[in-house]
């Protein structure tokens, strides 16, 4: 039995009834009186000078209310990281990818808006394009941004310890190169927004975002409005996975159009536009050289990585750092050298996606570790155990593992999958493989340099007593954080879950950096917990005065006041309460415990509205070197996975038979949600490993921009999944909680790769594992080993 009353249990999501019945309101469900529809003209070519833009025909079309280009929008630069603001709302001198924004229209209906867009005439002067890293880095290659010669968007050079010296002590050194493919996160709800610039000059943007706070700041900056006049509200969101963690051009454009017309303006991306806009996982090319001693001790890693960035930076600076820093753990490794390069190409920009920067790196490295284990004739699971960090360890790049249930995770999947009996004894064509991984529980620093709190929250008790209203600016995007925070508030306040009502996703509620880097449970959780404790103390303070009992001798649990010492006579207080509630059916009976409802009413009568506030900002984290901030976190979640596969050697088709996943999420707040995140990570990992690749033709156009040809796993593709929750007590987490949303994807791809090798004896170093790629690898292996 859990020592907790609310958390550490299973709760249905608070938004489940609304979503299950279709009553939940998403942007697409919203409309306002007089609302206009917006549409964007996007570049049909990948690289060209803009010679002329003629909007006259579009302006004349009946129903068109505004046509805007860079002339109206200005040239304020923005992006994700202030270190690389390289986008403007509209292109003015040239376009850099198929999809770059040139102009926009607001009209009375969508058909008219689209027709008007088609009437805008743009004269281009074609420029040569670069679509690969090799092309972009070649001598004399066309340059996308004059400010970044050689198309070098960002580079990282880090060394911890002395890699060269360490290699001299190693018995085995392995070097391999690995490549994943450009991804799309394939969320169900495409981006959409509704901007309303009201008659008082206040701008409200309703948008499908993960980060209302950052969108608010970018809007204020680009539109040159006081931030106090800008409000961003996030209705229900059909997932984001990182792609909605920045500000998209449509969000700004809809605001501009609303400001220009004085009407609400609604806009949506089609699925094609989602692919055109991109901002999902980069294509990474990793080359890693790992040195180990005969006994399996990992000594050093030398690592180069090239990221195909697309036309703009987006999250890319953080990505190129994460791609290196997230190999610091979870194994003890004293020496690590990393050189990372993010390169501009004439394609949609890449950004952050679940497991930001670390997924392909992990896939490369964990497969390499298996190769080394094989050469050492060690069980790969034992080799990982041998090198595993424990709680309290710090990586060579200064990441502190304040809790780390990694060994427990490995033992859990070993048992859950029956590894010991299956490894080395499966028939040919069947294989089993494992891998480990870890991830941050929230970035240690905000995207812009600031001393801001990462999260604030407040709780107001309803004046008649009994209900706690929780307000946070966090972003519920389907992951269940509203439920998590309701549970944390209920636990900390000592009331039942259904006595909490939550409102979230509105910048008017405070600061919350949003749903990215798996931060909310830990960070928003702290703020919510503090707000709940604040409220509780205020109620107990009033009781203390009324009953002449020290507040510390009282508590609130399960909705009633606990008197730790002698129970006082509170009958007078109860009479007062009942007198005010004559005729109400839920008044307390004689002999009942003093309820939270009575106590909070008494508190209101004494003090007015009871409002408690909470806040959270991580302590100083990480090292002092350049880029030390990326990868730091107050805590790290970790996981181990074992995957079993069958490979049809005739066709190369891989079938995943079973997946066993154990994740250390600290203290599980809502066990059902934790498992949901594990399932989601596994299926996203399966997709990237097996099917997914955004394909781009030689003109820079995405050719599979729909969910028929961009293939994510269907229900039939997902095997049986066993998800095992491993709990640790994270000292930096609220109630000991930490992340699960992204760490769980880390081991998935390498575990599949290692299982495929186990089945066919052939290593594959490029994703996805389509039947053709696996078949070709088998044939090449056979030809080589004839």
């Amino acid at each position, binding site marked *: 039995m859990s020592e907790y009353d609310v958390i550490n249990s299973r709760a249905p999501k608070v938004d489940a009834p609304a979503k299950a019945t279709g009553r939940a309101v998403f942007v697409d469900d919203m409309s306002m009186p007089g609302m206009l529809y917006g549409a964007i003209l996007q570049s049909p070519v990948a690289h060209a000078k803009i010679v002329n833009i003629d909007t006259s025909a579009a302006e004349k079309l009946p129903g068109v209310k505004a046509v805007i280009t860079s002339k109206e929008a200005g040239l304020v630069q923005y992006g994700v990281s202030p270190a690389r603001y390289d986008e403007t709302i509209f292109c003015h001198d040239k376009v850099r990818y198929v999809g770059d924004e040139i102009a926009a229209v607001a009209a009375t209906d969508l058909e008219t808006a689209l027709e008007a867009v088609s009437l805008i005439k743009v004269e281009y002067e074609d420029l040569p394009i670069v679509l690969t890293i090799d092309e972009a880095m070649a001598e004399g290659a066309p340059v996308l941004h004059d400010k970044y010669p050689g198309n070098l968007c960002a580079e990282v050079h880090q060394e911890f310890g002395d890699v060269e010296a360490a290699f001299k002590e190693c018995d085995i050194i392995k070097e391999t190169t690995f490549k994943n493919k450009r991804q799309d996160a394939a969320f169900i709800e495409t981006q959409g927004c509704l901007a309303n610039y009201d008659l008082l000059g206040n701008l409200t943007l309703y948008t499908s975002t993960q980060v209302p706070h950052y969108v608010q700041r970018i809007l204020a900056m680009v539109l040159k409005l006081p931030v106090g006049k800008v409000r961003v509200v996030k209705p229900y969101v059909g997932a984001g996975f990182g792609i909605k963690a920045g500000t998209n051009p449509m969000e700004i454009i809809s605001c501009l159009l609303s400001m220009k017309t004085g009407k609400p303006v609604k806009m949506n991306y089609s*699925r094609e536009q989602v692919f055109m806009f991109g901002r999902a996982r980069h294509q990474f090319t990793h080359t890693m050289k790992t040195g180990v001693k005969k006994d399996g001790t990992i000594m050093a890693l030398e690592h180069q990585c090239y990221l195909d960035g697309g036309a703009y930076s987006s999250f890319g600076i953080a990505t190129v750092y994460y791609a290196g820093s997230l190999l610091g753990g979870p194994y003890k490794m004293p020496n690590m050298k990393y050189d990372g390069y993010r390169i501009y190409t004439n394609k949609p920009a890449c950004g952050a996606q679940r497991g930001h920067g670390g997924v392909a790196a992990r896939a490369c490295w964990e497969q390499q570790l298996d190769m080394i284990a094989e050469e050492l004739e060690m069980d790969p699971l034992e080799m990982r155990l041998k090198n595993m960090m424990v709680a309290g360890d710090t990586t060579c790049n200064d990441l502190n593992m304040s809790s780390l249930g990694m060994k427990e995770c490995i033992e859990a999947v070993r048992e859950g999958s029956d590894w010991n009996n299956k490894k080395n004894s499966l028939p040919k064509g069947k294989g089993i493989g494992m891998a480990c991984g870890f991830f941050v529980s929230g970035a240690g620093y905000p995207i812009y340099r600031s001393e801001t709190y990462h999260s604030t929250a407040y709780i107001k008790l309803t004046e008649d007593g009994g209900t706690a209203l929780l307000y946070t600016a966090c972003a519920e995007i389907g992951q269940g954080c509203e439920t998590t925070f309701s549970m944390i508030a209920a636990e900390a306040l000592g009331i039942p879950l259904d006595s909490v009502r939550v409102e979230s996703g509105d910048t008017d509620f405070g600061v919350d950096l949003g749903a990215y880097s798996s931060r909310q449970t830990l960070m928003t959780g702290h703020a919510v917990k503090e707000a709940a404790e604040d409220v509780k103390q205020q109620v107990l303070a009033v009781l203390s005065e009324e009953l002449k009992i020290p507040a510390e001798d009282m508590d609130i649990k399960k909705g009633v006041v606990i008197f730790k010492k002698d129970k006082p006579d509170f009958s007078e207080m109860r009479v007062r309460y009942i007198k005010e509630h004559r005729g109400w059916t839920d008044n307390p009976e004689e002999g009942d415990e003093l309820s939270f409802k009575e106590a909070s009413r008494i508190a209101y009568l004494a003090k007015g509205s009871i409002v408690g506030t909470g806040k959270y900002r991580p302590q100083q984290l990480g090292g002092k070197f350049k880029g030390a901030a990326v990868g730091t976190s107050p805590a790290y979640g970790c996981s181990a996975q074992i995957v079993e596969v069958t490979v049809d050697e005739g066709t190369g088709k891989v079938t995943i038979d079973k997946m066993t996943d154990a994740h250390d999420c600290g203290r599980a707040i809502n066990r059902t949600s934790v498992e949901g995140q594990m399932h989601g990570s596994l299926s996203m990992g399966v997709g990237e490993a097996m099917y997914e690749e955004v394909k781009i033709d030689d003109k820079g156009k995405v050719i599979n921009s729909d969910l028929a040809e961009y*293939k994510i796993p*269907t229900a039939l*593709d997902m095997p049986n999944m066993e998800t095992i929750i491993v709990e640790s007590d994270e000292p930096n987490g609220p109630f000991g909680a930490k992340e699960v949303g992204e760490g769980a994807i880390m081991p998935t791809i390498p575990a599949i790769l290692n299982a495929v090798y186990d089945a066919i004896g052939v290593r594959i170093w490029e994703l996805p594992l389509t039947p*053709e790629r696996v078949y070709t690898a088998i044939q090449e292996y056979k030809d080589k080993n004839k």
Partner: protein
Amino acid sequence: MLLPKFDFHEPATIAEACQMMAEFGSEARLIAGGTDLMVNMKHKVISPNHVVSLSRIDDLKKLDLSDSTVKIGACFTVAEITESEEIGKKLSALRTGARALGSPLVRNRATIGGNLGTARPAADLPPSLMVYDAKVVLTKSSGEREVSLDSFFKGPGVTEIQPDEILTEIRVDVPPPHAGAGYINLGIRQAQDCNLVNVASYIALDGPDGTIQSARVVMGCVGPTHLRASSAEKLLIGEKPSDELFEKAGEAAMGDCTPIDDFRGSAQYKKAMVGVLTKRTLGIALKEAKDRG
């Protein structure tokens, strides 16, 4: 993505529908399940002025079974094929093809007539129907004609159907004893996929443990239409079935196909898979031929 504007018609009888098609000609498109048409219209690949729905014509939804023939109405859904015990018994490879098509949602809407009429070279139903030597009935106001599927497909999206005609029925003779067929489709994922290669094979033996009297092998995704692997068929006829024979037939089929490189896969891989799937479908066909002895 918005649908272009069009007039929508819902005739209640085949005759009425034929009249409309005669009147509108190539300005009109027929819609049954709409799983293909709606997508193409939203993509503006086609923008017909008239869309004529067949959904209210009950005569097109019939399944007519006798000992010797199976007649399937053009609007019989793919889901209904998957559920039909009788089709499973008489034309097992057709049911396998139906089960492989799209996803449960698509199968609930998609029809057998639509899967033939859209003439996609990767479609799931044509290979097995072709190995069963199926015929389609094309109807217009002035009468109907029967066309073998062998000569029905003219190219991707192009068929023998004339603008004033409607595909109303599919007719298949029930295979004789000691005959069997198999179908395999290879794709990237388990559902909602476009096949990389699909193959159906049919053999009829002249008795239990006899020699192969007739054989048909049909390959999808490796040409502008589904292709007969005629040299593989020739190689099989008159021989006793064996793994070696089927292997050879697979190799022969590889020579019969004309795949191209595209973003889904290389020609070389598709050709290799024709060999593998031909051999495997012949194996399934043989097993059924023996079971149905």
